[in-house]
């Protein structure tokens, strides 16, 4: 499994995806399902939550885990199909409405050619699908140096006039 960050560089994978908590203590860096999160974690236990990630499918409703969100160490949004763009909205909602600031990872069916959309929607890492390489993601991220809209990332240059009217969210 290869994880790239928002610059397209390969980073160490510190997280393990688990089906149940058996054999894992609270400080393991594990990624669980929303059901396990709700069943086994206390929303007030911020320390444990900071070592915990949750993995959401396109059907899962973020509002059900709302109380946990700000304290989670990672949220992974799984793309069912690259054509299904719901996770882009979920990502922005997490960043903007839930003020989630930690690692937001895209996984599942994503294409290198979508990398820039992912990062600009607020994802901070991508689990590179087997048939692609990290380099392809990096190359695609470098395809554009400008954008019209504000977005979550900061490497876009939003210049004058109309573009100025849409300041960068990340700059808050």
């Amino acid at each position: 499994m290869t994880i790239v960050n928002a610059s397209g560089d390969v980073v160490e994978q510190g997280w393990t995806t688990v089906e149940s908590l058996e054999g894992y203590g609270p400080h393991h860096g594990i990624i669980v399902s929303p059901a396990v999160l709700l069943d086994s974690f206390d929303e007030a236990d911020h320390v444990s939550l900071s070592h915990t990630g949750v993995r959401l499918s396109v059907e899962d409703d973020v509002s059900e885990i709302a109380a946990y969100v700000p304290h989670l160490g990672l949220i992974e949004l799984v793309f069912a199909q690259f054509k299904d763009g719901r996770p882009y909205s979920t990502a922005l909602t997490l960043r903007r409405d839930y003020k989630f600031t930690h690692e937001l990872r895209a996984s599942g069916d994503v294409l290198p050619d979508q990398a820039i959309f992912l990062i600009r929607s607020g994802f901070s890492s991508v689990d590179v699908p087997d048939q692609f390489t990290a380099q392809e993601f990096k190359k695609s991220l470098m395809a554009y140096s400008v954008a019209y809209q504000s977005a979550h990332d900061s490497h876009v240059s939003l210049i004058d006039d109309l573009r100025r009217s849409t300041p960068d969210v990340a700059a808050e």
Partner: protein
Amino acid sequence: MYVYDSLDKTLLNQRVAEFRDQVQRRLDGDLTEDQFKPLRLMNGLYLQLHAYMLRVAIPYGTLSSDQMRKLAYVAKTYDRGYGHFTTRQNIQFNWIELSTAPDLLYDLSEVDLHAIQTSGNCIRNVTADPYAGAAADELDDPRIWSEVIRQWSTLHPEFSFLPRKFKIAVTGSEADRAAIKFHDIGLKIVRNNEGVLGFAVYVGGGQGRTPIVAPLIKAFLPAPDLLRYLDAVLRVYNRHGRRDNIYKARIKILVDSMGADSFAAEVASEFNRLDPKLLSVRDDDVSRLRDMFAQPYLRPDPDSSSSFEDLVKKSPRLGPWFKSNAHPHKTPGYSIVTISLKPIGGIPGDATAEQMFGIADLADRFSLGEIRVTYTQNLILPHVRQADLFVLWQELERLNLATPNVGLASDIIACPGLDYCSLANARSIPISQRISERFANLNAQHDVGPLDIRISGCINACGHHHAGHIGILGVDKKGEERYQLTLGGQGNGESAVGKIVGPGFDEDGIVDAVETVVSTYLSLRTEGEVFSQTLARTGQDPFKERLYDNR
């Protein structure tokens, strides 16, 4: 017109380079067809029956003469010498090769043209009133707001993989010439009681297999809130639009199933969550755009005014042309001139490279270098001095572009149909050609009056048949082409969906049927009544009787 600045140029150049790389990876076999298809579609490149087809965006239907020359050059260099103007204010080239498409797009980018978001499940090229900036009844220039939307929606990170395509249309006039209520979002520029500029927002219109006239979702949206509101609509759609069934994926189905009121409420709550600072459209940005779109001052020239009588004296054929193809301009003494791309028996919307070069020159001589594309597949010279009409008309005649039939029976909208389109059930173009020939007598057409005939080669309804006074839909019945007839659609102003009259016809039958409908109207109409009024008064029954009873 809008002038590209360095950001626009940089982004466009990077898009061209990105696509060149994608094509190369495909040709080298690094991308499979499944992986490549969505990428090429995001850049308007389809694979049709005979070749690749490239759809080039004409933002809100406005072209400069230089852009038109480039389209002509592309038609000559990369295609077989012609292009097809479409109901989406786009142009399509039918005979494109994958291997040279990147060069073509590079050439287009030199005049700020592109194929970005002319296909795919994203926010498509924004369309607008083709009379923008020239019409007397305009509250504000819709191109200003269309350009705001173009920038916001281009390569939008969140809204490029929607459940389905998304089309936005803008009009600044009460007389809707952009069919806004048949779009996913229709925006009508309005002023509230205090005189503040804003929009009436219609959401969830469309054609296809479920034609729906969009309901009003917000009666008054202050102009600065435009993007914030669009953002909210798109987010609600991206989240809740159906993805399990391609035929139920458009926003019209979502709005319909939620009900317009609860949809509006959901949008309002999303809208209120969004930081007003983030997406507000600022006055100084708008005035910058307003300056760009302001037409150079036209000196009112009432002496130049030509009346029908004056022009008929110059040539008997000029009078009817003036009547059907010229529209009053907001400046006295000027006309908005429609160039008909519907010669009798021709292919609706097609123009040859020579014609495009010619039109570009005429735009320079007579219309401040500006050309518009209408969704009815014609072109417009928006600012013509009436004193120039005679010379312009002569030049247009020379180019075979002076057919005096705008808004009349032979001004037919037709999609490419089975002659080109891989989704088609039946041919559209030959039917339109035969109907046009049936009504070849232009005097008779003028006598029949305004009549809007539209043909689609399958239920996708690219030819807007639902919205035609007379609509024709091609279907496949056990391998045979059949044509269904609908009556009572309305594309402009009051939008309405036509109703199917009865059993379908074969190719000969449908041409006869259209003639029967028209002669029935002629026998029923009262003094001064146009087709749609007669039909509204009598209903379909007398037409049905004539069509089916004496068989």
